[in-house]
């Protein structure tokens, strides 16, 4: 009777949840009921999702209450037995509470790696609430200079998040809302940097790197010019004092060193690509000096293939905004123009950048002409969607650089390789390509062709466009076929037989 048992389980769950709730109430009402807490802790070992969730909520209720009321506050923590005996009964109770608190934190940290995402999330949020509460009402006496941020608990939490065994990406994405706080971000970066530095650079760390990447991806510094940071989750430090935690510059420094440390690791290719994709957008603006990335980017650019394409973007940022002097940039760019470029995922990005690189009117004509020729040569092998990029691209080059028009206007010589290729495309099987190829014979317009729409164009979209067209007329063959293979003039018969 599976249904029956399920019912039973549900019933018992309900009872347990009820008891958890009542015990929480009892505990908060009267100190005599202190043992209720122990009961709840033991209940939290349950397998049932609902029970665990109820336990976590109970913990939150109890401890947030305790922390805010300062019921766990201790001037100093007893270390020896004698110390313990010295304490008053009140202090002993507080000690006991502290022990339970650490038990509960430990249990919650375990729950972060629970298989259910709801449990994970709730545990994470509750822990962060503890962190916040502790930050507001410290559990021990702090000196003036000391910050209220409970670094110990937070470090444990972060280390759990950056697990080596389980991919916690969704949870880390959830964590992003806490990273908005300047202090949380600071400690997160600090701890991550420390851990990352200690990790040996060997290969079995793909999941760990994935988690670190997920965290790094979420990091973003406020885009203000204000040096002082004021968005704190815990008690604000004295604003006058210039601490590392509340100055943007120091956070930026930490951010930079953290990223550099991360990029030093051996990353799996997919992660590597992901890093390259976000580098220019999410990392460079927050670095103290993006030029520190130039080594990494140059290396990546030299790898070739898709990685090069991706590195191009970051490199361009460096050259363009940070004055990186990169020799042979165009030579390498030229080398990237090969047939396979039309079959990779980042095609649109590549052509967008290539268009950008060739925008400058200061480029020598021979260079632009070389690119144009290369592209037209490529045009002989690429599928129609690629052709619809290439052709406007070439035309734009010719419009932009009138000095290149010798390529297509050379009345004195008999050989112009370039346009012959275009002429070939006028015979392309797709009518749109043929139409574009025919444009070379017409006088050039003054304005460039818009590229943005065609960059993302895929064959699927082209087919869809054709399919969407309204059918007005369908011409049909006028010769009746004799069978599947058709008539004599159908070439299929020469190569294939039915049986």
């Amino acid at each position, binding site marked *: 009777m599976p249904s029956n048992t399920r019912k039973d389980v549900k019933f018992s769950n309900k009872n347990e949840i009820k008891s958890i709730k009542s015990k929480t109430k009892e505990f908060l009402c009267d100190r005599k009921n202190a043992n209720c807490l122990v009961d709840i802790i033991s209940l939290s070992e349950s397998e049932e999702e609902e029970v665990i969730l109820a336990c976590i909520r109970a913990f939150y209720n109890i401890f947030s209450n305790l922390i805010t009321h300062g019921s766990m506050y201790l001037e100093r923590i007893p270390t020896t037995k004698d110390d313990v005996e010295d304490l008053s009964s009140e202090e002993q109770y507080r000690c006991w509470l502290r022990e339970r608190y650490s038990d509960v934190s430990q249990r919650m940290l375990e729950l972060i790696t629970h298989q259910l995402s709801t449990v994970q999330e709730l545990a994470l949020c509750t822990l962060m609430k503890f962190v916040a509460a502790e930050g507001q009402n410290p559990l021990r006496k702090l000196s003036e200079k000391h910050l209220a941020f409970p670094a110990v608990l937070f470090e444990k939490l972060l280390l759990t998040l950056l697990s080596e065994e389980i991919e916690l990406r969704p949870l880390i994405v959830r964590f992003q809302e806490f990273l908005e706080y300047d202090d949380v971000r600071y400690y997160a970066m600090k701890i991550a940097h420390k851990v990352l530095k200690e990790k040996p650079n060997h290969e079995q760390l793909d999941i760990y790197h994935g988690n670190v990447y997920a965290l790094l991806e979420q990091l973003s510094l406020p885009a203000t010019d204000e040096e002082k940071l004021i968005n704190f989750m815990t008690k604000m430090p004295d604003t006058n004092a210039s601490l590392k935690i509340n100055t943007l510059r120091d956070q930026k420094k930490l951010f930079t060193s953290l990223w550099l440390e991360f990029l030093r690791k051996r990353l799996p290719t997919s992660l590597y690509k992901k890093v390259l994709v976000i580098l220019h957008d999410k990392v460079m603006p927050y670095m103290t000096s993006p030029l520190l990335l130039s080594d990494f980017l140059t290396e990546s650019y030299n790898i070739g293939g898709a990685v090069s394409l991706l590195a191009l973007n970051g490199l361009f940022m460096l050259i363009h905004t940070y004055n990186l002097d990169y020799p042979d940039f165009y030579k390498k760019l030229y080398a990237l123009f090969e*047939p*396979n470029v039309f*079959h990779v*995922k980042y095609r649109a990005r590549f052509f967008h950048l290539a268009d950008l690189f060739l925008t400058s009117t200061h480029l020598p004509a021979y260079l632009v002409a070389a690119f144009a020729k290369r592209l037209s*040569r490529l045009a*002989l*092998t*690429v*599928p*129609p969607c690629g052709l619809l990029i290439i052709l406007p691209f070439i035309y734009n080059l010719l419009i932009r650089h009138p000095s290149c028009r010798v390529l297509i*206007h*050379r*009345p*004195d*010589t*008999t*050989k*112009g390789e370039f346009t*012959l*290729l275009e*002429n*070939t*495309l006028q*015979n*392309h*099987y*797709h*009518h749109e390509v*043929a139409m574009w190829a025919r444009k070379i014979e017409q*006088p050039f317009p003054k304005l460039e062709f818009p590229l943005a729409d065609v960059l993302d164009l895929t*064959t*699927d979209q*082209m*087919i869809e466009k*054709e*399919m969407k*067209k309204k*059918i007005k*007329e*369908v*011409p*049909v*063959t006028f010769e*009746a*076929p*004799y*069978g*599947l*293979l*058709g008539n004599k*003039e*159908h*070439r*299929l018969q*020469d*190569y*294939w*037989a*039915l*049986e």
Partner: protein
Amino acid sequence: MGKKRKGGISDKVRNTKKSDEKKTNPFEIKVNRQKHDILGKKIAKYDKGRPGVARSRAIKKRKETLLIEYQNRGKANKFIDKRFGEHDTKMTLEDKMLKRFALERQKTQDKPSSFNLNEEEEELTHYGQSLSRIEKFEDPVDSDEDEEESGKISGDLVADEHFGGFLTKKSDEETNKSWKERMEELIVKSKKEKYERKTEKEKTLEMTEKLDEEWKSLRLLMGGSKHKDDAQAPAKKADDYDITVRELAFEIKGKPSDRLKTEEELAKEEKERLEKLEADRLRRMKGVFPDEEAEKKQVHFSADDLDDGFILNKEDEERFHVSYKDGQLLTPFGKDQSELEDTEEEKDKDDDDDDDDDDDDDEDGEEEENGEENSEEEESGGEDNHSDLESGDEEGGEEEEDVKEPSKQQQAKTDIVTDLKKRKKVMEEARKELPYTFPVPLTYEELVDMLEPYDADDQLTVIQRIRKCHHPSLAEGNKEKLETFFTVLLPYLGDLASQEEPMLKSINALISHLYELCQMSPIKAGQAVRDLMEEKQDEFSQYCQRKGGRGIFPKLDMVLYFKLVSLLFPTSDLKHPVVTPTMLFMGQILAKSPVQSNRDIFAGLFICTLFLEYISLSKRYVPEVINFLRGLLFLASKKDPNKLEDVVHPFKPVGKVDLLEIKGKTAKSVEIKPFTISQTFACKDLRQLSTDEFRVCATCQSLRLLQEFAVLYEDLPAYKEIFQPLRYICSKLPTEKYPEKVQKQVSDLIQQLEKKNQNTRNSLTMQKRPPPMLKMFEPKIEESFDGRKKRGGTREFRDKQRLLHKHKKEMKSAVRELRKDSQFLARQRLEERMSRDAERKRKVKEIYGMLASQEGEFKAMKRKKDKPVI
């Protein structure tokens, strides 16, 4: 009084009108001069302006709106004056008071006035008719008829009864009677009256009739002879001329021959025939035997019987399948066993013949009906061809019949038993037979249900019959039905192809059906094929997305659809609603799908061949095919392990690159054959294919295809550039291992590729932009001028321009108005301030004056006092 008032109002109106027509001061008019007089142009609205009037109007309007708003700016409440005519400046005070008084009175009078009978203005009606008219008896009705019809009681009775008859005398008797008695009496009375009237009327009628009769007889006496003469006058004899005229008129001008039957009629006949056969079949299935006589008349018509009675007699003799005699099945015609066997054999042979016929038919492609005939022949046992056999038998049969006749009575009992047995047998046979009419399946499932019980040949017959039964000329909605039938048949083709053993023969036969249906309604068919392509392409792209951009080579059904497109639609068109997306799809498959197995090679080669077919007329350039063939040759070539060859996507220089490499020492003895679809696509065991024979064949086919493409593209200016990498790959082929034929092919191809491009490359000149024309001073003359200026650009562009212009205009006018508003307000404020100041000044002055006079008086008094009294 009313009249007087009316006159007053009209006078006033007239007066006001007069006052409105002020004499316009010429100095107040501003004329907007037209620069050019254009003929036919509408005169602008604003040719004249009266700035003074306009300004005062604007100010007045502002006073009514803005000023009031300004004055009320700090006020929350509003007092609305609802008194009549309070704001009407045209009314005099007296009028206003009068009207108000009237309104007041009306308010109090309004309600009771509806019951006021003295009110003459209201007209009372009854059944939509004015009562006054009814009282006047303007349209008196015939009381007699009316009463009879409506059953009303006569007037005096009513007059007597209603309202107690007023002053009419009544006897005591009557007064003593009860109400009921009186009413009964009344009814009796009225009934009696009615009856009397009726009898009277009848009497009059009778009388008139009688009179008429008498009159007639009298009339006959009076002028009868005259009439008789007229009637009995002998007919004139027609003369020759008349006869000939009539003859000529009636002569048949041209004799109609037997009319050629229209398509509709033929189709109708065909349908009728099928229906009849179906009815027959049903009857036989149920086991009801027709009379012998009827049976004799029952004639079987062939599907393409011309109805000329040519084969008919013969058929009559030949057909035996449904003839019974005395409960004896006549099928064997009394043949003995050996003969039966003989026919059986013949039948088999015939079946084979039929198959041959089938093929022939396909090649002829003319008589679609043949298929049907064949199937019928099969049903009837394929007896068409042995008339010689039967001609003899026929007599024998008859003889037997004669012999049987006497024995009939003796064997009556046994006959019944055999009869029953025979009946059973016949019923079974009939069950096996195909029905003759089918409904059109509307969905694919229906089609499958319909076709499931039959074998492959019968399925085709069924399809044939469906098409015949629903010929568009037979009924209104048949065309639509057949259109849906086409869409249903398409997946059926795919189904046939994707079976474990593809039923190519059926597909082959199905093609002609699809072709004809497509011819019938191209648009719907095109739509159907395109929808199918769209669906398949969706599947493909979804697969690609799942596999990270890598595609898969299609199965046989898809490949056959591609072929079908080329059969149904012309592939040489530049744009074609079906062919263009199909070609894109094919190209996409070739460009995206990595070759991983031998089956992929087949599918790829098939698509390449299809591309060759598609573009053989138009000679369009298909880069994907060249890339693919290059990749295949790369797979076949010797590879240098230390060097990565330059290949294009989807081929990769590493990985499974030896699919087409010859594994054995040599493959010279291999015989080159064309691939067969059934073997290659349906092959389950791929290892079976990985032989050197297959590899050589595939290589050979790619070489041949390349050769053909090379010839096709010879004229392209970029011929050299296109085929350059192929030349290199060809040189890498292990030709020494290939059979001689293939070797020759390789060398031929290389030769072809090295062929110099014959037409020299033309020198290139860019087209010059024509110099912009100078502006002319002559008038621009439009040939067909319709009074409007023509603007260029698309409709959207023009609309946008129009809206922009409108927006600009509105914006400008709004700004102007706002500016004027603020000016007005400023003026208003100034005015207020001035008046305030003036007031203050006046008051100050007054006070000063008062004070001065006071002072004066005081001083005077003082002086008086000071003055010593003399």
